[in-house]
């Protein structure tokens, strides 16, 4: 099962885990997840995520399909929030479900590393009265590149 959702609504991790586990069925004994939260360091008071509607969902589904080809997975989930959010709130939740824990853990790391470079999202931070676009990190390219083969 591939589940992709891009939405302005807060991410309900408990509900998403239940969906991922149910899709895995009784064969899927391992679920690895990654959750990204808005960090409040450097005085950031708000983060706004812009995205490319249509292209975003397509990129995320493609990423899930790539993970499913690379590992034996019973379920792959990517939930990405867009719009304004505050420090401590969840930006992204990815889950990989498999019969084997190594596959679930590796697929989860792959999904979040590649999502950082392969999906059309842009972050804008508010600090005090002004806002600034977040620059892409070189470290993200390096992390994503380690999965290319």
């Amino acid at each position, binding site marked *: 099962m591939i589940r992709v959702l891009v939405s302005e609504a807060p991410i309900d991790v408990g509900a998403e885990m239940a969906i991922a586990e149910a899709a895995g069925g009784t064969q899927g004994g391992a679920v690895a997840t990654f959750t*990204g939260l808005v960090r409040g360091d450097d005085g950031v008071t708000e983060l706004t*995520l*812009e*995205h*490319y509607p*249509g*292209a975003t969902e*397509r*990129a995320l589904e493609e990423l899930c399909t790539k993970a499913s080809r690379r590992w034996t997975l019973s379920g792959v989930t990517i939930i*990405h929030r867009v719009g304004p959010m505050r420090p401590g709130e969840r*930006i*992204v939740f990815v889950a990989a479900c498999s019969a084997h824990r190594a596959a679930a853990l590796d697929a989860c790391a792959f999904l*979040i590393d590649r*999502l*950082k*470079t*392969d*999906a*059309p*999202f*842009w*972050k*804008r931070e508010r600090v005090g009265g002004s806002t600034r*676009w*977040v*620059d*892409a*990190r070189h470290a993200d390219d390096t992390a994503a590149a380690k999965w290319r083969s």
Partner: protein
Amino acid sequence: MRMVYFAWVRERVGVSEEDVLPPASVATIADLVDWLSGQSTAHAAAFAQRDRLRAARDQAFVSLDTPIDGAKEIALFPPVTGG
């Protein structure tokens, strides 16, 4: 052809999307960026740092040297920062 812009590229161009009719000599997305840069100072400013510009052709990520080849929609934007 529909142009769409995101993040600071959108802010600098001043619109989120626009319809354009480039001349036949505009073959690749890089050609399109050059041609648009000649159309207004806002476009020129938005596209000044070519190494910080990324593109999608009909909603799929492509490099700037990709031919336009009858595309319906070309998107221009900065490097992505999701997740």
